[in-house]
Structure formats: structure tokens, C-alpha cells
């Protein structure tokens, strides 16, 4: 058991089974769907309220995504701790500025380039999740497991734009 926990990387099927069980348990116990992107909006709403309350004074923050320390924020916190524990156990944990060998090989070692792309990508991603009503975890999996049509529309759309984006970025190396 310990050996398994210390393994650097599981088969995606095994990790998928674990996550599937997490979803089942969370639904059985309290009908909470594990979401990741919602937390940023809850925290963002809090920040908006603190800095410029008018920004938070709209329908979206009033009814769709109320600001505050919600269960989504707790899930996000748990995700960070869980990933940290997993990485620590396998000795995979390290602090990096340019994260990935593949990125370095294709786009060079420039730090700001990676950070700018990461930052802008994050904004685009969160914006899209806000419009669609969820991200990969909350909508695609959390909705898909109830066979919600919205989840499958979302997954299809995600790949419809993701593939050309990757093609463009990797141009000749695709």
C-alpha cells in the first residue's frame, strides 16, 4: 500500500477510479459536486467587494456565484494540500519557475514567456468556465456523471478549440 502511495505516477485508470469514488462519496454524503473553478470566482467576488463594492453588485455575484468562503473554496484548499501530499510522498515535489522540459524544448527557457502565457491562459480558461457554468471537474465530470447534456457539449467544445490552439502553438512541431 505504502509502495503504491509513493509511486511517482499511477496509471490514469487507477487514478480515475480513485477520483470516481471521491465523486460518489461526496454525492452520497452531501450532494456536493467537486468543483475547482468556482472557488476563484467566490474569492474574486470577495476581493471585488473589498476593493470596489460596485463591481460585486451585479446579478452574477448576487445569484450565480455569491462571494464568500464557500465549500468550493474549501475544495480548492483541499486540492492544493492533496496534490502537495501526493507530490511529497513520491518525492516529486520541487519549486520551479519554468516548469516543463517539453515547454523548454519547444519555446525556450524564457521565464516571462511562460508566465505571460500561463497568466493569460488562466484568465481565458476561467472566463470560459464562468460562461459555460463549470470547468472540467465541476461541469464535464460532475455533470457528465448524471448524463447532463451540458457536460458533453462542454467537453466537445473544449476539444474543438483546444486542438487548433495546440496546433497553432506547436505549428511545425505538432
Amino acid at each position, binding site marked *: 500500500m505504502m509502495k503504491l502511495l509513493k509511486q511517482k*505516477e499511477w496509471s*490514469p485508470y487507477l*487514478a*480515475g*477510479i480513485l*477520483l*470516481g469514488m*471521491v465523486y*460518489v*462519496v*461526496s*454525492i*452520497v454524503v452531501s*450532494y*456536493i459536486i467537486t468543483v*475547482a473553478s468556482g472557488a476563484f470566482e467566490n474569492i474574486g467576488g470577495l476581493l471585488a467587494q473589498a476593493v470596489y463594492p460596485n463591481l460585486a453588485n451585479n446579478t452574477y455575484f448576487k445569484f450565480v456565484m455569491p462571494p464568500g468562503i464557500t*465549500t468550493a473554496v*474549501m*475544495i480548492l484548499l*483541499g*486540492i*492544493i*494540500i*492533496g496534490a*502537495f*501530499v*501526493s507530490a511529497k510522498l*513520491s518525492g516529486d515535489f520541487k519549486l520551479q519557475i519554468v*516548469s*516543463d522540459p*517539453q515547454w523548454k524544448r519547444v519555446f525556450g527557457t524564457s521565464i516571462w514567456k511562460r508566465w505571460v*502565457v*500561463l497568466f493569460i491562459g488562466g484568465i*481565458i*480558461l*476561467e*472566463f*470560459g468556465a464562468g460562461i*459555460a*457554468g463549470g*470547468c*472540467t471537474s465541476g*461541469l464535464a*465530470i460532475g455533470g*457528465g*456523471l448524471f448524463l*447532463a*447534456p*451540458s457536460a458533453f*457539449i462542454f467537453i466537445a*467544445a*473544449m*476539444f474543438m*478549440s*483546444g*486542438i487548433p*490552439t*495546440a*496546433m497553432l*502553438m506547436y505549428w511545425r512541431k505538432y
Partner: protein
Amino acid sequence: MFEMIFSLVMGLGFGFALQKAGLGKYNKIVNVFRFTDLAVLKFMMTTLAVAMVGVFALNTLGWIALPAIPATYLVGNLVGGLIFGVGMAGAGF
């Protein structure tokens, strides 16, 4: 209060599973869009299948009721998904 702590624990499991699947890494996310490493899809679809079977089995046994599913809003889901995909493939997380 229980919900808060319970959410934290579920988040722990979520983060752990994702890290173990290697999804914290840039190359895993981007390569699924280049069809060179389908770990993300394998992981996502396994999760979906396991959760689906679990939830619907428990529902059939009458132990749990199904919660409200996310509303279908074609334009929103589609446009949101399209924007999301650009961010996901670009940033790689």
C-alpha cells in the same frame, strides 16, 4: 461546518488523484490536444464511468436521490467550452 470540512477532505482526494495521474504537469494537458498522450482522456473517462456506475447503482437501490443536474444552456456551454479550450491548451493546466 460539517460541509466545509467534508469539502476539504474531498478536495484532498481530488488533488491527490490528479497529482498521481500526472495532471499537474504541463505536458500531460497539452499533449492530449496533440494526441501524443491521452492520459487526460483516460483519466477523465475512467472517473466518469466509475462515478456514473456508482451514483446510478445507489440511486437504483434507492439509497440516494439524484441532485439537480447542471442546466443545459446550449450557447453558454458551447461558447464557454470553446473559450475554455483555448485557455486550457495554451496555459496547459
